[in-house]
Structures are given as structure tokens and as C-alpha cells.
């Protein structure tokens, strides 16, 4: 059995430290996801009306977010704002802002899509039954839209979690940074730690994302 450098994990609080690093990543995604869902629903509903300015705003916003790599957006937020406005954002704040901007645009688009994908005849038949517009939205449109939305928003959160891996590159101490520190500290005692520790990080990310994507797939199948 070759030395896979796994023993490092059981030394001291190393494994707990890794989990702590993962939690930093998860916390950032969760905060950003909450902001995105709230702001995205608002934006999406506003944009789903015909000839709405919000629809145009959303399109441009989404275009910018989609064309730039997230790494570049993080970089712009982290270094750019210091330069332009003299703000000294922490890496974590910069990450939450970028993820929220990204998530709000995507959620907004998903909500707009879900609302407008419901056939007009549904709204018309509800109106024909004598429901008021707000009732039509509450009892007919929303329940159908939410079913389509939930799996898609879970997917968005999964993608956010995966993207948090990048924030180590703007100086946030999260799981990858902790991993590097552990490997560095045990360079002499376990020269092969890089294998075991990075493998663990890999598995932990998988364990964090897999249940979510599984849930999304399941819901898509049963609600789709």
C-alpha cells in the first residue's frame, strides 16, 4: 500500500478544519442564494409583464453576467471596487455580492420564464371564472410556476457551491486554502499529504453537491 497521505487528516483537528473551510463556502452560497431568491422573484415577476422596463434591464444584466467568467467577476469586484471607489471589500463580501448579482439575474430570468411559460389560456380560463387578477396570479399562475422553479433554483445553488471554490483565489480562507495550509504544515512528516488532502476536498465537494443535484433531478421528474 503506497503512502497516500491520508493519515494527515486524523492529526489534530485537521479534518474538522477542512469541514470548517467547507462551511465557509457553503455559508457564502447560502447567503447569496437567499438574497438571489428574494430579489430574483421580485425582478422576475416585474419583468414578466409585457413591455416592462425590468425585462430590458434583466436582459442586459443577464448578458453581462453570462458572458464573463465568474472568476473575472470576482476579480473585478475584489480589485476593481478598491480602485474605483476606494472600498476595501473583504474577499467574502466581494464573493457574496458577485454571487448575489449572478443569482438574482438567473433567478429573475427563471421566474420570468416560468411565469410566462404558463399558457395564456390558463390565465384566461381563470379570469373567465371570475377571479381577480391578483387571485389568478396567487391561485393559478404561482403554484404552477413554483413547481418548475424549485428544481431549477436548487441547480443554481449547486452551481454556486461549486463556484465558491474560486474564492480562495481572492484570499478567502475556505476549504481549499485550509487544505493548502494543512499540506504545507505537514510537508516533512507526510510528504504525500497533497494526494490525500486534495482527494478529501474533492470528495467533500461531491458530498455537498450530489444530494442537491439528486433532489433537483427527482423534483424535475415528478413535477416536470
Amino acid at each position, binding site marked *: 500500500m*503506497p503512502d*497516500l*497521505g491520508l493519515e494527515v487528516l486524523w492529526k489534530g483537528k485537521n479534518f474538522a478544519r477542512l469541514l470548517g473551510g467547507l462551511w465557509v463556502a457553503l455559508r457564502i452560497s447560502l447567503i447569496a442564494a437567499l438574497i438571489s431568491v428574494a430579489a430574483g422573484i421580485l425582478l422576475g415577476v416585474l419583468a414578466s409583464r409585457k413591455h416592462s422596463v425590468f425585462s430590458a434591464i434583466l436582459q442586459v444584466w443577464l448578458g453581462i453576467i*453570462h*458572458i*464573463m*467568467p*465568474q*472568476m*473575472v467577476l470576482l*476579480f*473585478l469586484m475584489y*480589485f*476593481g471596487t*478598491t*480602485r*474605483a471607489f476606494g472600498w476595501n471589500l473583504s474577499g467574502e463580501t466581494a464573493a457574496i455580492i458577485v454571487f448575489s448579482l449572478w443569482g438574482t439575474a438567473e433567478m429573475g430570468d427563471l421566474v420570468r420564464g416560468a411565469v410566462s411559460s404558463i399558457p395564456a389560456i390558463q390565465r384566461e380560463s381563470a379570469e373567465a371564472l371570475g377571479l381577480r387578477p391578483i387571485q389568478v396570479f396567487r391561485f393559478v399562475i404561482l403554484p404552477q410556476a413554483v413547481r418548475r422553479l424549485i428544481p431549477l433554483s436548487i441547480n443554481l445553488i*449547486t452551481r454556486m457551491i*461549486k*463556484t*465558491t*471554490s*474560486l474564492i*480562495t*483565489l481572492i484570499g478567502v480562507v475556505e476549504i*481549499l486554502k485550509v*487544505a493548502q495550509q494543512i*499540506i504545507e504544515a505537514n510537508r516533512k512528516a507526510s*510528504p*504525500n499529504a*497533497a*494526494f490525500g*488532502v*486534495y*482527494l478529501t*476536498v*474533492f470528495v467533500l*465537494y*461531491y458530498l455537498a*453537491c*450530489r444530494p442537491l*443535484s439528486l433532489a433537483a433531478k427527482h423534483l424535475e421528474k415528478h413535477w416536470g
Partner: protein
Amino acid sequence: MDWGYIQNVLPLYGKAAWLTLRTGAAGILLAAIVGLLCAAASHWRVPVLRRITSAYVEISRNTPLLIQLFFIYYGLPKIGIRTRPEACGILGLAFLGGGYMAEAFRSGIEAVDRIQEESALSLGLTRLQTFLHVILPQAAAISAPAFMANVVFLMKETSVFSAVSLMDLMFTAKDQIGLYYRTAENLFLLVGAYLLILLPLSMLGSVWERRLRYAGFGT
């Protein structure tokens, strides 16, 4: 904005952009091949291979590229597998992208009606002929938008290559800012370079998608 400085570093960005394009294209090509093989394995229900490919797809789609790269670049050498930075980037991109491409192709193949396959079989075509001449052309058209979206996505993912010491656009920008504190100029160049690469790709994707949707051969 110091235009003289920009002119000076432009060649550096050109070189970096070329590296991004080159490694990105190679990784995407490999990813497409891996994806097609996985999709074929799942379509034909090849016993063991089908299990392996579906596990691979799940793993590649549920882990970040950066972590995959770290594992390949820093982890694997400890058990004797060494790759140069460029090869590592391409491999990582192919590993990640293979899963996404497999899903794109698989859903395209599944979207072709089963009776189309039966109709081809009833004409006496073999399974392979049926796949190549009847299913694949239809699946390709259905998968094209997802394929192009993956191409753009994977091209964007190359922006983490700097983490395995590839001198790509991110690396160059960071390096220059660190050395000369020219933040504005470098961010401008960084965004400009990515726009130059990604805008045409994404425009190509949407043109293609529209063409397929409105002028396709769909029944």
C-alpha cells in the same frame, strides 16, 4: 487610463489569450469525444460501462473544476502521475466537460422518438447504422444548443487555469497588478480579452439555436 502602458502589455495579453483559446479548444474537443462515448454507452445499455460512465458523469458534474485541477496537478504526482501545467488544464477541462457533454448528447438521443429507431431497424439497418444515420443526426440537431452552451461554459471555466500556474489571462492580469499596481488598465484588458473570445462564441451559439428552431427539419 495609461494607453502607453496598455500598448506595452498588449503582446502579453495576446499570448495569454492564445493560451486560453488553445487549451480551451483542446479540452472542449476531448470533452465532446468523452461525452459522445458516454452517451453511446448509455444508449446501447452496455452492461458495466454504462454504470461506470454514469458514475463518472455524476462525479464530474458535482465537483468544481478548480478542485479537479488541484487534485490532478498537486495530488496525482504523489502517486507517480505527473502532468505539465498545460496538459493538466486540458485534462481537467476534458474531465469536467465530458460529464456536461455526455448529458447534452444523452438528452438529445433520448429526445429522438423510439419508433424512429424501430422504423430504421425494420428497414433492415443494423444497430450501428441506425445509430449513425438515423438517431445521431437528429440527436445532434436537438443537442446543438446545449452543446454550444457547454462550449461557452467550458471556455469560461478556463479562467481558473492560473491556479495550476498556466500563464493565462487571469494570471497575466494578476501578475501585472501585483507588479505595477495598474489595476484599471489590467482589468480593462482582462475583460476586453475575454469579451473578444466569448462574445463571438456565444453569438454563434444563439444564431445556431435560432436557425435550428425556425428552419430545422423538425416534422
